[in-house]
């Protein structure tokens, strides 16, 4: 069983479009995260939810809107996509106490 799963794995779209990435975890963790990995492999946290409540919101354009319908799911919706949004987006879950995270396989977004 996949612990943290994301869909889609690949996403190619045009500038200006709106797209969503979905994430689900079956580890029973309370906390879920979105990280962005740029072309230089640098990983930066974007958002975190704890039991459906937003607890971390880094400096991210408001075109990005996370949603957590329950503690096992965390989705990321991106409006008006720009070229600079091209990256790999990783979902992760964790216990929230020690910071140890379990990652999904990533969703590679390419904006043309």
């Amino acid at each position, binding site marked *: 069983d996949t612990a943290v799963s994301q869909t889609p794995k690949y996403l190619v779209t045009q500038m200006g479009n709106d797209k969503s990435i979905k994430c689900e975890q079956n580890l029973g963790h309370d906390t879920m995260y979105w990280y962005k990995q740029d072309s230089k492999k640098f990983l930066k946290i974007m958002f975190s939810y704890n039991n459906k409540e937003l*607890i*971390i919101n880094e400096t991210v354009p408001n075109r990005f809107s996370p949603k957590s319908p329950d503690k096992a799911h965390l989705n990321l919706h991106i409006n008006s996509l720009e070229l600079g949004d091209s990256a790999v987006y990783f979902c992760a879950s*964790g216990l929230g106490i020690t*910071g140890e995270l379990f990652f999904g396989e990533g969703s590679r977004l390419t904006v043309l």
Partner: protein
Amino acid sequence: AQSVTQPDIHITVSEGASLELRCNYSYGATPYLFWYVQSPGQGLQLLLKYFSGDTLVQGIKGFEAEFKRSQSSFNLRKPSVHWSDAAEYFCAVGGLTSGGYNKLIFGAGTRLAVHP
């Protein structure tokens, strides 16, 4: 603010040689420290972690790391590298947000290439 520095962007070793990847962190209290590995096209897999206690921690795939508070370092080591170890390695520190939650702050990563 918490930060992690991995001084080596790219390292190449021969198969069977020993390996040490450097990591330095900045954190006000006792940190939670991690090493993750990312194979091409894959997500991140936890290699090992340090929370407290013995400063030499063992991980998966024959890796170990040593926490040295005096040097603010958490270097990753392996005595004999295998070709399958070629990947990107990330050091990370668990840091508290203002709300009391933990978040992982990653270093820029070290790309390991292994020569046969």
